[in-house]
């Protein structure tokens, strides 16, 4: 699914990376705990989070996430928005809550990391 379809499905405001909406997204990872993103999230996935501070954008950048979706209408802090725009990282904002957003994406065929990845080494 293209990122623009994600934006349409969840009625998002696209706050950054408007020219990257043709990016293909087929996996998601949802967390407010960035420690979990750094530990468990697969590369290139959509980061679904309620953490609207700069840390979520920095984490997405470090962990090679394909885009960030902020849920529950949690508008990003000014520094978070500036970092996302500076790096042209797609940043989407939806009024849906985390559970709804994940559910709607799942229903459209969005995948999640396999549970086995939660115990494997990064290098395997």
């Amino acid at each position, binding site marked *: 699914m293209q990122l623009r379809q994600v934006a349409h499905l969840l009625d998002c405001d696209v706050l950054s990376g408007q020219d990257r909406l043709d990016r293909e997204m087929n996996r998601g990872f949802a967390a407010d705990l*960035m*420690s*979990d993103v750094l530990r468990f999230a697969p590369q290139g996935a959509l980061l679904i989070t309620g*953490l609207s501070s700069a840390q979520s954008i920095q984490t997405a950048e470090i962990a090679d996430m394909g885009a960030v979706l902020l849920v529950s209408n949690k508008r990003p802090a000014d520094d978070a928005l500036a970092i996302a725009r500076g790096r042209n990282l797609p940043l989407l904002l939806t009024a849906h809550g985390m559970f709804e957003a994940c559910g709607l994406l799942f229903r459209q065929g969005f995948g999640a990391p396999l549970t086995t990845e939660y115990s494997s080494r990064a290098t395997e």
Partner: protein
Amino acid sequence: MDRDVLYRETFRIKGDAFEHGGEVATHIKTLLKQFGLAPDIVRRLSIANFEAEMNVVMYAREAELELLVYPDVVRVVVTDRGPGIADIAWAMQEGHSTATAEMRARGFGAGLGLPNIQRNTDELTVESTVNVGTTLRYAVLTAKPPEAGQ
């Protein structure tokens, strides 16, 4: 051995500066990409650097992060001045953390940092003296020589 070093730079990390947390790791990530290292190597090093940087931000007063790029390995040494770690074996286990509520509210402090550095690197040693500080040394083996210094 140091005759082989292709690139060396030392970065300062300030403790308690949450608003800057991640800037050093992000800057180094850009460098590592320019050196032509494979994306998964860059990602593993960047995650380790970010975890180490956030540990300094959360717990220490200040630190230096030294980046050493060799033809077949990237080494990082993070030396902080801070409270130190009383029980390293305890801190190396997932879920073990002394984080405050504020750290957790910012999305960190889950007790995954040191184990995640270990998971993403090929070598890790941790030395610490309580009330003095902690030194992390980690390394990631690189498959082909990077193009640093050319």
